[in-house]
């Protein structure tokens, strides 16, 4: 160990006074704490939650079946609001799906040790959020039975997709992101799956965990390969964090519609995505750490750090809102100008001000350390941010469409029962998957978190 490294380790300690793993945190306890969840009967709350999630998922299934049998008209979409809630939900879920990869990949590359407590968790959230997101573009098309035409599959029609369409870029961006996120998550899971396999007491568990552990033995060579691969995947995933939501923003930015046609969208969308993603991690982590006894691994310090990110990105988003208005005014384009005045003062002003309140004003409470570290406050704020970010997408999609160029085609959009059922149902899908994950997989990266124990630090300081 060189002197420099020792100095930096000490510096770390100065900046991060409380340890990232608390309590009686020896390596065995960590393994026990995390694995126990997957090995024992879950608490009653899990069953209740799972039953509810499954019920809501069932509602989604029925809504989707009804949709496919009847047509897109079961939603409130109309002319000119041809994209309604399904697209709002899509962008909302894709946004949430950002935190996981950001926490895993970007923070990994920046050597932010605190990520280890929450990365597994948020990666899982990412995967499930992207699954929810992916559902919407698929079901929102008019003829779902020919949806495969958007993929460049050689076919008897000798027709390719139209590569100039941002929707097609979306298909590629989201599917790439999903694939890489899944791989990344699975990679990280392998050592922990092996741990679970080794602790298994039944044959089925041993077999299932065994298959997915891919014969992991924890050999030095394996660890070496693993670290390399993890680094590579992190490097691969990092640009995707930026690209996927940039491409999603192109769906809007590339079009001609006032309120959509703006170059600020890619960074603005990415900031918003990180914002909402972190908020969702907090929303999930707060109950999960209580429910599964993970308070020592997902510590208040983790949560506080996330709240800081939420505040920062919230202000980025707020800046973007202000800048949109400035540009609309500065451009001198009357249609663009009107689009924004209409957002703030038109028929959907309520949605706009909900968005501003939730996204810009609420996170300001995090200037106070007490608020950053208060579980009830952060839980409420994170929910507010989730709501606010959903409304941001609603504001962008619906208010821009409802009044575009020709006043003759202006119309109001109102959601239907099926719109609601689909939105709520998507949470059913998300939570069903998430609760299954909590039940059967290690919620915290056992192997990684061990590197952050005081024990590990003292090792390095030897």
């Amino acid at each position: 160990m060189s002197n420099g490294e020792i100095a930096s380790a000490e510096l770390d300690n100065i900046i991060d006074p409380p340890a990232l793993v608390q309590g009686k945190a020896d390596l065995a306890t960590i393994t026990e704490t995390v694995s126990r969840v997957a090995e024992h009967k879950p608490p009653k709350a899990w069953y209740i939650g799972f039953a509810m999630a499954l019920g809501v998922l069932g509602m989604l299934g029925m809504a989707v079946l009804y949709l496919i049998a009847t047509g897109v008209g079961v939603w409130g979409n109309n002319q000119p609001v041809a994209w309604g809630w399904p697209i709002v939900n899509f962008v909302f879920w894709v946004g949430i799906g950002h935190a996981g990869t950001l926490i895993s990949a970007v923070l990994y590359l920046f050597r932010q040790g605190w990520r280890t407590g929450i990365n597994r968790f948020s990666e899982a959230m990412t995967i499930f959020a992207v699954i929810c997101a992916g559902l919407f573009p698929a079901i929102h098309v008019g003829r779902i039975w020919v949806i495969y035409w958007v993929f460049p599959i050689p076919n008897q029609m000798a027709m390719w997709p139209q590569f100039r369409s941002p929707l097609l870029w979306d298909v590629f961006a989201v599917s790439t992101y999903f694939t890489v996120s899944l791989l990344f998550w699975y990679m990280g899971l392998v050592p922990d799956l092996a741990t679970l396999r080794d602790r298994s007491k039944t044959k089925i568990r041993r077999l299932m965990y065994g298959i997915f552990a891919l014969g992991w033995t924890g050999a030095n060579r394996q660890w070496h390969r693993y670290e390399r691969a993890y680094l590579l995947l992190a490097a691969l995933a990092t640009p995707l964090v930026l690209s996927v939501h940039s491409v999603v923003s192109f769906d809007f930015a590339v079009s001609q519609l006032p309120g959509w046609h703006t170059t600020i969208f890619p960074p603005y969308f990415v900031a918003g995505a990180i914002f909402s993603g972190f908020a969702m991690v907090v929303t999930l982590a707060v109950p999960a750490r209580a429910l599964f006894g993970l308070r020592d691994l997902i510590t208040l310090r983790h949560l506080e750090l996330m709240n800081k990110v939420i505040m920062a990105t919230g202000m980025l988003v707020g800046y973007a809102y202000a800048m949109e208005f400035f540009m609309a005014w500065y451009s001198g384009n009357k249609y663009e100008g009107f689009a924004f005045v209409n957002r703030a003062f038109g028929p959907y002003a309520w949605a706009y001000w909900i968005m501003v309140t939730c996204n810009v004003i609420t996170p300001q409470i995090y200037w106070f350390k007490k608020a950053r570290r208060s579980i009830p406050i952060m839980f409420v704020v994170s929910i507010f941010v989730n709501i606010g970010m959903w409304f941001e997408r609603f504001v962008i999609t619906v208010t821009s469409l409802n009044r575009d160029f020709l006043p003759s085609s202006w119309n109001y959009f109102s959601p239907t029962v099926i719109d609601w059922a689909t939105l709520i149902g998507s949470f059913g899908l998300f939570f069903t998957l998430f609760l299954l994950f909590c039940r059967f997989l290690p919620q915290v990266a056992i192997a990684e978190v061990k590197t952050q124990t005081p024990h590990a630090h003292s090792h390095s300081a030897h």
Partner: protein
Amino acid sequence: MSSLERSESTQKYWRSLNELEQTPEFQALVETEFPGGPEEEWTESSRRRFLQLMGASLALGSMSSCRWQKEYITPMVDRPEDWVPGKPRHYASMMQVGGVAAGVVVTSYDGRPTKVEGSPKHPAGAGTSTYAQAATLELCDPDRSQAPCQIIDGAEVDASWEGFESFLVEQLYGLRGSGGGLAVIAQSDSSPAMAALRRRFEETYPEATWVEWEAWSRDEEAKALASLFGGPTRPTFKAEAADILLTLDDDFLELHPEHKKNARGYASRRKPEERAMNRHYAVEPSFSVTGVGADHRLPVRGSQVAGVLLAIQAELAVNYGVGSAPASVPTTGLFASGPVQAFVKAVAGDLATHRGSCLVTAGVNQPAEVHATVVGLNIALGNRGNTVEYHAADGMTEPGTEELSALVESMRDGAVDTVVCLGTNPVYDSPADLEFTSAYSRVANRIHYGLYRDETAMASTWHVNAAHWLEAWADGRSWDGTHTFAQPLIAPLYDGRDRYAFVGGLIGRGDIEAQSWIQQQFNALYGPDELAWRKAIQRGFQPGTSFVKAGAPGVAPALTMDSGQLEPWDESMPLEAVFRLDSKVYDGRFANLGWLQELPDPLTKLTWDNAAVIGVGTANALGLKDHDLVEFELNGRKLELAVYVMPGQAPGTVGLPIGYGRTTCGHVAGLAADEIDPVGFDTYKLRTTDAMAFGQGMTVDREKKGFYQLVSTQDHHVIDTTGMDGRADRIGDLVRSGTLEEWRDHPDFAQHRVHHPPLKSTWKEHEYSDYKWGMAVDLSACNGCGACTVACNAENNVPIVGKDQVFKGREMTWMRMDRYFTGDPENPQVVSQPVSCMHCENAPCEQVCPVAATVHSSEGTNDMVYNRCIGTRYCSNNCPYKVRRFNFLNWNEDLQEEDGEVRKLSMNPEVTVRVRGVMEKCSYCIQRISAARIERHSKGERIQDGDVVSACQDVCPSEAIYFGDLNDESSAVRKKHDNDRAYAMLPELNNKPRTVYLAAIRNLHPDLAPAYEPHGGHGGHGGDGHHSDGHSDDSGKEVEHV
């Protein structure tokens, strides 16, 4: 989910019932089977569902006998000459509404009529009414009566024509020679052959009464002219010769029998570079299509129109020596106000300086005295022979209320024991004070002959079904008297009989058959000449048969004005009810046609409803607003009506369109028996014999009875201030208009309304070396009547969606008519703009489709590939004109069911019927381009200008739409594109739309308009060469304008 279940169960259901004949039990079963279906699908107010129900409930039973169910795809052994399967044939025919025939040309594919167009050669003018456009839908309406029936205790009991004939033998033929107690209430009919038949009828039943009845009639005009000229007389206008027009409560551009000819002539004087522009003054209570075009419009109460006429008469006599001054001239109240006096002075001045080239007309609603005065004024101004001519319309009648009143009286007295309603529906549309229904019920034998089992049919004892005009021979006279003929395009679908055969049956002449009867009468009139007859049928009319000029008129009686109507309206005064003919459903007879119900009203933009239309100031004074359901009272009769606030409706008046609120019509318009609510409100309940046009003393109970959802395709009242500001800010850029002075100064003023930076294309633009299709719309000529919308529906199989779906904003019309108001809400100017796909060269929709379902053709059309579309709807989002229409649900579901067969008949086989989930939009009538291409290219020629006429262009009475090849320098559309008035909508987006608009020009009177200040030069251009400084030859500065 439910639709899958339903379609399956429906199929099974029908298979099991197919063998059943149409028994009463079957009817009952059908009627009870459907209303309780899955809730989402069968809500009571979903009109679209009604359409689907239509066939299911009524059509099928008797359809098993129809021959189109047997389909043989075999070549013809003896193919008729000229008959190429799949190739359309065109036949001249005739449609008669309100006793006036209109020449039409019907397109027929393999024996089924699919489209009605105006007859270009007919002397009464080309183009058609919206009613004619919807005729194919009416023909194939499954709600049409499909068999005779008896009505016993309010229930329909199936019967047959044989049964009806034996009834006639028993009950009627005994009366032959006398006819006492027999009465016929017939529709107004101009047919010479029917007149001959009626004479036979009168010979057979000398004591019988034959009454004509039309709910909407030009009887006041007819009365006035008959007394002046000493016989039935009709005026015809030459609007193209009029420099100055004064229309007094007269919608002569839309609701006149000769509206096509009038509109064409009028519009030819609204295109300033072609001919000197006319100046048009309109005085009217309700905003009409004619008022839209007017340069100056004076909204006054219907009863005050006479006063305005008196003031003009006095001004003309006193200051210009035209005619004689009337005895009493209103000078107080409203007539003392500055705007009215200025208007009167301006009109009188213009009329006096354009003697012989001006025109004064009065509308149906105005009393006979006004019409008589107008005749006198036109003659005093020297207009007769120039802009107006009076013709002796021998034999032509305009039914009033007197004959019907007398008949109803004797019915009530029990003096009538047999009444035949010949196509009429008096139970529904007769004046309320006659209380027709109660008198009718006293008649023992009540026979109804008509297309539908309507209100009168159900109040009768016998109903027999009529043949549609597309199924029958007929003749008639057009407004100018030209003898016009109808020939059947298809054998009667439901074994209905034409009216000649029916009346023949009444007199015991079962041998009378329409074709030979009409030919006999033809021979009697023009001599027996088989060739002439055939030519007349082929042409659709007999030339040289128009009415001769009438002689000199007598002196018009002095016009007086009701002195109680002098004051301008204020809150303390009662209201004036103004009944209006509806431009969509006429007097209610077309109420079951979905295309017309869904067509937005030209002014209110309401669909699927009528309403009490009141002005902005009146509404404010009364504290009423849109959607308020309130009770109106007129002469003791009360009716709840929904309020619609309409800018430009005269203060103190309530516009009441008739023809709605049908209770026994069909699954579209309302059918109480099937628990289908009526569409709109039955304003006939307020219309009495002394208030057929307008009625005084109407009051309103301001207490709201509820909220009634009126649905318009353009909501403009429920708009917030943000929206209003935004709208006001941009309308001038979208719909460009200017005054004649402005145009004279800067013919290209419209191109300078929007300046933008130079535009660059992202990629290399297409080149169009072959054909280059484009369209131009002259906003100066367009009056917003909406005929183009219906024509487009008919041509392109555009589905209707129903009130609920229109409310959601899912109407499917490819061609929509945007309407904007400018100026004072009490007297605004209205601008109408037809908008359909612009076929942009840089089409934004094409860029964003992920599957290339909307693509550009080498000729520049933006084509929708329906079977490639997956329905992402991104194209619609990116369309700045929002002209794309999405099949949110399966609008054509009813066609897939077995009973949809009859509806399929009306579909244009050249155009795909779209499934749910795909986008659609205007195709520039690409099927017509293809047809012209095949025709020309097979001869090795290029498509010539005029070969391709789009459906909207074809129907437009004002010739406001031009279509053709922009690469053809001599084409009309190219000239319009090169016109200085031409501008593209939203040019700054660089979409390069292929449809351009020509700015609307108003010819304002200097005393009535804000002073025009010519501005020197104009600002710099964008520098992209979007406008050439050399003004084209078309600018026509040498034309002398008014």
